[in-house]
Protein backbone atom coordinates (compact mmCIF):
# COMPACT_ATOMS: atom_id res chain seq x y z
CA UNK A 1 0.00 0.00 0.00
CA UNK A 2 1.11 3.58 -0.64
CA UNK A 3 0.42 6.88 1.08
CA UNK A 4 -0.22 10.12 -0.75
CA UNK A 5 1.73 12.43 1.57
CA UNK A 6 -0.16 15.48 0.28
CA UNK A 7 -3.45 14.06 1.56
CA UNK A 8 -2.17 12.37 4.75
CA UNK A 9 -3.06 14.19 8.02
CA UNK A 10 -0.70 12.00 10.15
CA UNK A 11 -3.61 10.96 12.38
CA UNK A 12 -2.45 7.37 12.94
CA UNK A 13 -5.83 5.78 12.24
CA UNK A 14 -4.28 3.40 9.68
CA UNK A 15 -1.78 2.16 12.26
CA UNK A 16 -4.56 1.07 14.63
CA UNK A 17 -6.01 -1.49 12.21
CA UNK A 18 -2.82 -2.83 10.59
CA UNK A 19 -2.67 -6.57 11.38
CA UNK A 20 1.03 -6.97 10.58
CA UNK A 21 2.50 -3.82 12.13
CA UNK A 22 3.74 -2.46 8.80
CA UNK A 23 2.98 1.23 9.45
CA UNK A 24 5.20 3.62 11.38
CA UNK A 25 4.37 7.21 12.34
CA UNK A 26 7.09 9.79 12.59
CA UNK A 27 6.62 13.36 13.73
CA UNK A 28 5.49 14.61 10.36
CA UNK A 29 5.06 11.52 8.23
CA UNK A 30 3.40 8.10 8.09
CA UNK A 31 5.39 5.38 6.34
CA UNK A 32 4.27 1.92 5.15
CA UNK A 33 6.93 -0.80 4.99
CA UNK A 34 5.95 -2.69 1.85
CA UNK A 35 8.27 -5.57 2.72
CA UNK A 36 5.99 -6.28 5.70
CA UNK A 37 2.64 -5.14 4.22
CA UNK A 38 0.26 -7.92 3.09
CA UNK A 39 -1.95 -5.55 1.04
CA UNK A 40 -5.09 -6.35 3.06
CA UNK A 41 -6.42 -2.85 2.42
CA UNK A 42 -7.74 -2.21 5.94
CA UNK A 43 -5.65 0.96 6.29
CA UNK A 44 -7.03 2.34 3.02
CA UNK A 45 -10.61 1.60 4.08
CA UNK A 46 -10.37 3.43 7.42
CA UNK A 47 -8.17 6.31 6.29
CA UNK A 48 -10.44 9.33 6.89
CA UNK A 49 -8.41 11.44 4.47
CA UNK A 50 -8.54 8.74 1.80
CA UNK A 51 -4.77 9.09 1.42
CA UNK A 52 -3.91 5.40 1.06
CA UNK A 53 -4.15 3.29 -2.10
CA UNK A 54 -2.66 0.13 -3.56
CA UNK A 55 -0.62 2.10 -6.09
CA UNK A 56 1.18 5.44 -6.07
Amino acid at each position, binding site marked *: MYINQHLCDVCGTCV*SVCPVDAIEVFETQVVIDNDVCISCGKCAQVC*PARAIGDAL
Partner: protein
Amino acid sequence: MIRKFYDVVVIGAGPAGSVAARYAAMGGASVLMLERDREPGIPVRCAEGVSVNGIEPYIDIDESWVAARINHAKLVGPSGNSAFLRNNGAGLVLERRIFDVRLCELAIAQGVRLLTKANATGLIKKNGVVSGVEFTHDGVETSVACNIVIGADGVESRVGRWAGMDTALALKDLDTCVQYTLDGIDVNPEYCEFQFGNEISPGGYVWIFPKSNHSANVGIGIAGDKAKDKGPKQYLDTFVAKRFPEASATYTVYGGVPTSYMKDEYVQDNVILAGDAARQVNPITGGGIVQGMIGGQLAGETAAEAVKAGKFNRRFLMSYKRKWDKRLGDNQKVMFRLKERFLGMTDGKFENLVNFIKTIPEDKFSMSYLFKEAVKEDPKLMMDVAKSFIVSKLKK
Protein backbone atom coordinates in the same frame (compact mmCIF):
# COMPACT_ATOMS: atom_id res chain seq x y z
CA MET B 1 19.42 18.27 30.75
CA ILE B 2 17.42 15.06 30.71
CA ARG B 3 18.57 12.50 33.22
CA LYS B 4 19.71 9.06 32.05
CA PHE B 5 17.08 7.28 34.16
CA TYR B 6 13.50 7.95 35.29
CA ASP B 7 11.32 5.56 37.26
CA VAL B 8 8.50 6.10 34.78
CA VAL B 9 8.44 7.28 31.15
CA VAL B 10 5.04 8.35 29.82
CA ILE B 11 4.66 8.43 26.04
CA GLY B 12 2.07 10.98 24.90
CA ALA B 13 1.06 14.21 26.65
CA GLY B 14 -2.69 14.18 26.01
CA PRO B 15 -5.17 14.06 28.90
CA ALA B 16 -4.43 10.38 29.71
CA GLY B 17 -0.66 10.82 29.59
CA SER B 18 -0.45 14.05 31.56
CA VAL B 19 -2.80 12.78 34.30
CA ALA B 20 -0.85 9.48 34.47
CA ALA B 21 2.40 11.43 34.76
CA ARG B 22 0.97 13.70 37.45
CA TYR B 23 -0.32 10.85 39.63
CA ALA B 24 2.90 8.84 39.22
CA ALA B 25 4.89 11.88 40.37
CA MET B 26 2.47 12.55 43.25
CA GLY B 27 3.14 8.97 44.36
CA GLY B 28 6.86 9.69 44.55
CA ALA B 29 8.13 8.43 41.18
CA SER B 30 10.50 10.37 38.93
CA VAL B 31 8.67 10.87 35.63
CA LEU B 32 9.61 11.87 32.08
CA MET B 33 6.80 12.55 29.59
CA LEU B 34 7.49 12.52 25.83
CA GLU B 35 5.29 14.41 23.38
CA ARG B 36 5.73 13.92 19.63
CA ASP B 37 4.31 17.30 18.62
CA ARG B 38 5.71 20.74 19.26
CA GLU B 39 3.03 21.45 21.83
CA PRO B 40 0.55 19.32 23.80
CA GLY B 41 -3.01 19.64 22.53
CA ILE B 42 -2.27 20.21 18.87
CA PRO B 43 -3.40 19.17 16.39
CA VAL B 44 -6.81 18.93 18.08
CA ARG B 45 -8.23 15.55 17.01
CA CYS B 46 -11.33 15.82 19.16
CA ALA B 47 -14.95 17.03 19.24
CA GLU B 48 -14.06 18.63 22.61
CA GLY B 49 -17.25 17.76 24.51
CA VAL B 50 -16.98 16.67 28.19
CA SER B 51 -19.08 16.57 31.34
CA VAL B 52 -18.21 18.96 34.17
CA ASN B 53 -18.50 16.12 36.71
CA GLY B 54 -16.05 14.04 34.72
CA ILE B 55 -13.19 16.53 34.55
CA GLU B 56 -13.62 18.34 37.89
CA PRO B 57 -11.60 15.76 39.87
CA TYR B 58 -8.59 16.55 37.66
CA ILE B 59 -8.64 20.29 37.03
CA ASP B 60 -10.39 23.41 38.32
CA ILE B 61 -12.74 24.74 35.66
CA ASP B 62 -11.22 27.81 34.02
CA GLU B 63 -12.91 30.02 31.45
CA SER B 64 -9.71 30.21 29.39
CA TRP B 65 -10.36 26.71 28.04
CA VAL B 66 -14.17 26.64 28.14
CA ALA B 67 -15.65 27.50 24.73
CA ALA B 68 -19.28 26.84 25.67
CA ARG B 69 -21.35 25.58 28.59
CA ILE B 70 -23.83 22.94 27.46
CA ASN B 71 -27.16 22.17 29.15
CA HIS B 72 -28.84 19.72 26.80
CA ALA B 73 -28.27 17.10 24.17
CA LYS B 74 -30.48 17.09 21.09
CA LEU B 75 -30.89 13.73 19.36
CA VAL B 76 -32.05 13.89 15.76
CA GLY B 77 -33.42 10.80 14.03
CA PRO B 78 -33.14 9.93 10.33
CA SER B 79 -36.37 11.81 9.40
CA GLY B 80 -35.37 14.99 11.26
CA ASN B 81 -37.58 14.09 14.22
CA SER B 82 -35.77 15.20 17.40
CA ALA B 83 -35.75 14.78 21.17
CA PHE B 84 -33.93 16.62 23.94
CA LEU B 85 -32.12 15.00 26.84
CA ARG B 86 -32.48 17.79 29.37
CA ASN B 87 -31.44 16.31 32.63
CA ASN B 88 -28.06 15.15 31.46
CA GLY B 89 -25.99 17.36 33.73
CA ALA B 90 -23.78 20.25 32.76
CA GLY B 91 -21.44 19.77 29.82
CA LEU B 92 -18.60 21.78 28.37
CA VAL B 93 -17.09 22.26 24.95
CA LEU B 94 -13.37 22.69 25.51
CA GLU B 95 -10.52 24.49 23.85
CA ARG B 96 -8.27 21.46 23.86
CA ARG B 97 -5.20 23.39 22.73
CA ILE B 98 -5.32 25.31 26.03
CA PHE B 99 -6.82 22.55 28.21
CA ASP B 100 -4.10 20.02 27.36
CA VAL B 101 -1.32 22.50 28.15
CA ARG B 102 -2.94 23.29 31.52
CA LEU B 103 -3.04 19.57 32.36
CA CYS B 104 0.66 19.33 31.51
CA GLU B 105 1.40 22.30 33.76
CA LEU B 106 -0.34 20.49 36.64
CA ALA B 107 1.91 17.48 35.97
CA ILE B 108 5.03 19.64 35.79
CA ALA B 109 4.07 21.27 39.10
CA GLN B 110 4.33 17.79 40.66
CA GLY B 111 7.84 17.36 39.31
CA VAL B 112 7.18 15.74 35.92
CA ARG B 113 9.69 16.54 33.19
CA LEU B 114 8.04 17.16 29.78
CA LEU B 115 9.86 16.99 26.45
CA THR B 116 8.08 18.22 23.32
CA LYS B 117 9.15 17.29 19.79
CA ALA B 118 10.19 13.99 21.36
CA ASN B 119 9.08 11.12 19.13
CA ALA B 120 9.32 7.65 20.70
CA THR B 121 10.64 5.10 18.20
CA GLY B 122 10.93 1.91 20.24
CA LEU B 123 11.45 0.20 23.58
CA ILE B 124 14.87 -0.89 24.86
CA LYS B 125 14.91 -4.48 26.08
CA LYS B 126 17.65 -6.05 28.19
CA ASN B 127 17.42 -9.85 28.43
CA GLY B 128 13.83 -9.55 27.26
CA VAL B 129 12.94 -7.01 29.95
CA VAL B 130 11.82 -3.51 28.92
CA SER B 131 14.38 -1.16 30.42
CA GLY B 132 13.99 2.08 28.52
CA VAL B 133 12.69 4.06 25.56
CA GLU B 134 14.37 5.08 22.31
CA PHE B 135 13.25 8.39 20.89
CA THR B 136 14.25 11.28 18.72
CA HIS B 137 14.32 14.74 20.25
CA ASP B 138 14.41 17.58 17.76
CA GLY B 139 15.35 14.93 15.22
CA VAL B 140 18.37 13.67 17.18
CA GLU B 141 18.33 9.98 18.21
CA THR B 142 18.58 9.43 21.93
CA SER B 143 17.28 7.17 24.71
CA VAL B 144 16.33 7.05 28.36
CA ALA B 145 16.32 4.19 30.88
CA CYS B 146 13.30 3.47 33.10
CA ASN B 147 11.46 0.76 35.00
CA ILE B 148 7.95 1.46 33.74
CA VAL B 149 6.65 2.73 30.40
CA ILE B 150 3.11 4.12 30.25
CA GLY B 151 1.89 4.14 26.64
CA ALA B 152 -0.61 6.98 26.26
CA ASP B 153 0.15 7.37 22.58
CA GLY B 154 -3.40 7.52 21.27
CA VAL B 155 -5.35 5.41 18.82
CA GLU B 156 -2.28 4.09 17.01
CA SER B 157 -1.05 2.44 20.25
CA ARG B 158 2.48 1.81 19.01
CA VAL B 159 3.92 1.34 22.51
CA GLY B 160 1.64 -1.66 23.02
CA ARG B 161 2.85 -3.26 19.81
CA TRP B 162 6.49 -2.71 20.74
CA ALA B 163 5.74 -4.53 24.00
CA GLY B 164 4.24 -7.45 22.10
CA MET B 165 0.57 -6.67 22.77
CA ASP B 166 -1.98 -7.17 20.03
CA THR B 167 -3.54 -3.71 19.89
CA ALA B 168 -4.81 -4.01 16.29
CA LEU B 169 -8.49 -3.07 16.02
CA ALA B 170 -11.16 -4.83 13.96
CA LEU B 171 -12.62 -2.49 11.32
CA LYS B 172 -15.98 -2.45 13.13
CA ASP B 173 -14.24 -1.31 16.34
CA LEU B 174 -12.68 1.78 14.82
CA ASP B 175 -14.67 4.87 13.87
CA THR B 176 -13.14 6.82 11.02
CA CYS B 177 -13.76 10.53 11.60
CA VAL B 178 -13.58 13.96 9.99
CA GLN B 179 -14.34 17.24 11.68
CA TYR B 180 -14.63 20.84 10.58
CA THR B 181 -14.71 23.78 12.92
CA LEU B 182 -17.33 25.83 11.10
CA ASP B 183 -17.74 29.57 11.54
CA GLY B 184 -20.33 32.01 10.22
CA ILE B 185 -23.14 29.67 11.21
CA ASP B 186 -26.19 30.03 13.42
CA VAL B 187 -26.05 27.59 16.35
CA ASN B 188 -27.55 27.47 19.82
CA PRO B 189 -24.63 27.21 22.27
CA GLU B 190 -26.95 25.67 24.90
CA TYR B 191 -27.00 22.20 23.39
CA CYS B 192 -24.94 19.61 21.53
CA GLU B 193 -26.62 17.94 18.62
CA PHE B 194 -26.32 14.31 17.50
CA GLN B 195 -27.70 13.14 14.13
CA PHE B 196 -28.33 9.46 13.54
CA GLY B 197 -29.26 7.39 10.53
CA ASN B 198 -27.73 4.99 8.08
CA GLU B 199 -27.94 7.49 5.22
CA ILE B 200 -26.34 10.31 7.24
CA SER B 201 -23.73 8.35 9.15
CA PRO B 202 -23.66 4.54 8.94
CA GLY B 203 -22.67 2.94 12.25
CA GLY B 204 -21.99 6.29 13.88
CA TYR B 205 -23.35 9.81 14.09
CA VAL B 206 -22.82 13.41 13.05
CA TRP B 207 -22.12 15.78 15.92
CA ILE B 208 -22.56 19.54 16.21
CA PHE B 209 -20.75 20.80 19.30
CA PRO B 210 -21.08 24.60 19.56
CA LYS B 211 -18.05 26.70 20.43
CA SER B 212 -20.03 29.98 20.36
CA ASN B 213 -23.30 31.18 18.82
CA HIS B 214 -21.56 31.42 15.44
CA SER B 215 -19.15 28.47 15.42
CA ALA B 216 -19.14 24.73 16.15
CA ASN B 217 -17.18 21.54 15.80
CA VAL B 218 -19.15 19.68 13.15
CA GLY B 219 -17.90 16.16 12.62
CA ILE B 220 -18.72 12.62 11.72
CA GLY B 221 -17.60 9.17 12.76
CA ILE B 222 -18.58 6.10 10.79
CA ALA B 223 -17.77 2.49 11.63
CA GLY B 224 -14.66 1.34 9.76
CA ASP B 225 -16.40 -1.69 8.27
CA LYS B 226 -18.96 0.64 6.65
CA ALA B 227 -16.42 2.96 5.05
CA LYS B 228 -15.58 0.87 2.00
CA ASP B 229 -17.33 2.75 -0.79
CA LYS B 230 -17.75 6.17 0.79
CA GLY B 231 -15.46 7.70 3.41
CA PRO B 232 -16.53 9.93 6.30
CA LYS B 233 -15.63 13.11 4.43
CA GLN B 234 -18.16 12.40 1.68
CA TYR B 235 -20.92 11.84 4.24
CA LEU B 236 -19.97 14.95 6.21
CA ASP B 237 -19.73 17.16 3.12
CA THR B 238 -23.24 16.08 2.10
CA PHE B 239 -24.53 16.94 5.57
CA VAL B 240 -22.76 20.31 5.77
CA ALA B 241 -23.82 21.39 2.27
CA LYS B 242 -27.44 20.89 3.29
CA ARG B 243 -27.35 22.19 6.85
CA PHE B 244 -24.68 24.93 6.75
CA PRO B 245 -24.33 25.87 3.06
CA GLU B 246 -22.69 29.24 3.81
CA ALA B 247 -20.25 28.08 6.48
CA SER B 248 -16.49 28.59 6.44
CA ALA B 249 -14.25 25.90 7.89
CA THR B 250 -11.58 27.47 10.10
CA TYR B 251 -10.11 24.05 10.88
CA THR B 252 -10.24 20.59 9.32
CA VAL B 253 -9.02 17.47 11.06
CA TYR B 254 -9.04 13.71 10.50
CA GLY B 255 -8.80 10.95 13.06
CA GLY B 256 -9.82 7.57 14.35
CA VAL B 257 -11.70 6.65 17.53
CA PRO B 258 -11.42 3.16 19.04
CA THR B 259 -14.82 1.74 20.01
CA SER B 260 -13.53 -1.39 21.69
CA TYR B 261 -12.66 -1.84 25.37
CA MET B 262 -9.59 -2.28 27.57
CA LYS B 263 -8.19 -5.80 27.58
CA ASP B 264 -6.03 -7.70 30.09
CA GLU B 265 -3.17 -7.87 27.65
CA TYR B 266 -2.73 -4.09 27.68
CA VAL B 267 -0.77 -4.72 30.88
CA GLN B 268 2.58 -6.50 30.50
CA ASP B 269 5.85 -6.65 32.42
CA ASN B 270 7.13 -3.04 32.79
CA VAL B 271 4.56 -1.64 30.31
CA ILE B 272 0.97 -0.43 30.71
CA LEU B 273 -1.29 1.50 28.35
CA ALA B 274 -3.75 4.31 29.11
CA GLY B 275 -6.32 6.40 27.26
CA ASP B 276 -7.14 5.76 23.58
CA ALA B 277 -4.07 3.51 23.41
CA ALA B 278 -5.75 1.23 25.98
CA ARG B 279 -9.12 1.66 24.21
CA GLN B 280 -10.43 3.51 27.29
CA VAL B 281 -13.26 5.09 25.34
CA ASN B 282 -17.04 4.88 25.64
CA PRO B 283 -17.76 2.54 22.72
CA ILE B 284 -21.17 4.10 22.07
CA THR B 285 -20.41 7.82 22.23
CA GLY B 286 -16.73 7.64 21.31
CA GLY B 287 -16.03 9.95 24.27
CA GLY B 288 -12.56 9.41 25.68
CA ILE B 289 -11.31 12.49 27.53
CA VAL B 290 -12.73 11.69 30.96
CA GLN B 291 -12.22 7.94 30.46
CA GLY B 292 -8.60 8.61 29.55
CA MET B 293 -8.02 10.82 32.58
CA ILE B 294 -9.49 8.16 34.90
CA GLY B 295 -7.36 5.50 33.21
CA GLY B 296 -4.36 7.82 33.46
CA GLN B 297 -4.89 8.35 37.18
CA LEU B 298 -5.11 4.60 37.83
CA ALA B 299 -2.10 3.91 35.62
CA GLY B 300 -0.03 6.64 37.33
CA GLU B 301 -0.99 5.51 40.82
CA THR B 302 -0.18 1.89 40.01
CA ALA B 303 3.17 2.88 38.51
CA ALA B 304 4.06 4.81 41.67
CA GLU B 305 3.09 1.82 43.84
CA ALA B 306 5.25 -0.43 41.67
CA VAL B 307 8.21 1.92 42.09
CA LYS B 308 7.74 1.92 45.87
CA ALA B 309 7.48 -1.88 45.94
CA GLY B 310 10.30 -2.35 43.43
CA LYS B 311 8.06 -4.75 41.49
CA PHE B 312 7.45 -4.15 37.80
CA ASN B 313 6.10 -7.47 36.60
CA ARG B 314 2.72 -8.02 35.03
CA ARG B 315 1.41 -9.73 38.15
CA PHE B 316 1.95 -6.57 40.20
CA LEU B 317 0.82 -4.16 37.48
CA MET B 318 -2.45 -6.04 36.88
CA SER B 319 -3.91 -4.20 39.89
CA TYR B 320 -4.25 -1.32 37.40
CA LYS B 321 -6.58 -3.38 35.21
CA ARG B 322 -8.59 -4.55 38.23
CA LYS B 323 -9.05 -0.97 39.43
CA TRP B 324 -10.07 0.08 35.91
CA ASP B 325 -12.65 -2.72 35.64
CA LYS B 326 -14.19 -1.71 38.95
CA ARG B 327 -14.28 1.96 38.01
CA LEU B 328 -15.35 1.86 34.34
CA GLY B 329 -14.21 -1.31 32.60
CA ASP B 330 -17.12 -3.60 33.53
CA ASN B 331 -19.52 -0.92 32.38
CA GLN B 332 -17.47 -0.40 29.22
CA LYS B 333 -17.95 -4.05 28.23
CA VAL B 334 -21.73 -3.68 28.56
CA MET B 335 -21.58 -0.53 26.44
CA PHE B 336 -19.55 -2.47 23.90
CA ARG B 337 -22.30 -5.09 23.64
CA LEU B 338 -24.88 -2.35 23.23
CA LYS B 339 -22.77 -0.76 20.51
CA GLU B 340 -22.85 -4.02 18.57
CA ARG B 341 -26.65 -3.76 18.66
CA PHE B 342 -26.65 -0.11 17.58
CA LEU B 343 -24.49 -1.02 14.60
CA GLY B 344 -27.26 -3.25 13.30
CA MET B 345 -30.09 -0.78 13.91
CA THR B 346 -32.33 0.19 11.01
CA ASP B 347 -33.46 3.79 10.50
CA GLY B 348 -36.90 2.72 11.71
CA LYS B 349 -35.42 1.68 15.04
CA PHE B 350 -33.56 4.98 15.38
CA GLU B 351 -36.89 6.78 14.85
CA ASN B 352 -38.48 4.64 17.55
CA LEU B 353 -35.64 5.48 19.91
CA VAL B 354 -36.09 9.23 19.33
CA ASN B 355 -39.85 8.94 19.76
CA PHE B 356 -39.34 6.95 22.92
CA ILE B 357 -36.98 9.52 24.46
CA LYS B 358 -39.60 12.18 23.75
CA THR B 359 -42.00 10.36 26.07
CA ILE B 360 -39.66 10.55 29.07
CA PRO B 361 -40.78 13.32 31.44
CA GLU B 362 -38.09 16.01 31.78
CA ASP B 363 -37.75 15.64 35.53
CA LYS B 364 -37.48 11.86 35.26
CA PHE B 365 -34.63 11.65 32.83
CA SER B 366 -31.65 9.57 33.85
CA MET B 367 -29.63 6.83 32.19
CA SER B 368 -31.15 4.21 34.50
CA TYR B 369 -34.69 5.37 33.67
CA LEU B 370 -33.87 5.31 29.97
CA PHE B 371 -32.44 1.83 30.33
CA LYS B 372 -35.41 0.49 32.34
CA GLU B 373 -37.85 1.83 29.81
CA ALA B 374 -35.79 0.60 26.86
CA VAL B 375 -35.79 -2.90 28.33
CA LYS B 376 -39.59 -2.80 28.62
CA GLU B 377 -39.72 -1.96 24.92
CA ASP B 378 -37.10 -4.51 23.92
CA PRO B 379 -36.70 -7.43 26.36
CA LYS B 380 -33.95 -8.97 24.24
CA LEU B 381 -31.79 -6.01 25.21
CA MET B 382 -31.93 -7.13 28.84
CA MET B 383 -30.74 -10.60 27.85
CA ASP B 384 -27.82 -9.16 25.93
CA VAL B 385 -26.75 -6.93 28.78
CA ALA B 386 -27.21 -9.72 31.33
CA LYS B 387 -25.09 -12.01 29.18
CA SER B 388 -22.25 -9.54 28.88
CA PHE B 389 -22.33 -8.92 32.65
CA ILE B 390 -22.10 -12.65 33.33
CA VAL B 391 -19.30 -13.11 30.81
CA SER B 392 -17.29 -10.25 32.32
CA LYS B 393 -17.78 -11.66 35.85
CA LEU B 394 -16.83 -15.19 34.82
CA LYS B 395 -13.61 -13.94 33.32
CA LYS B 396 -12.42 -12.66 36.69
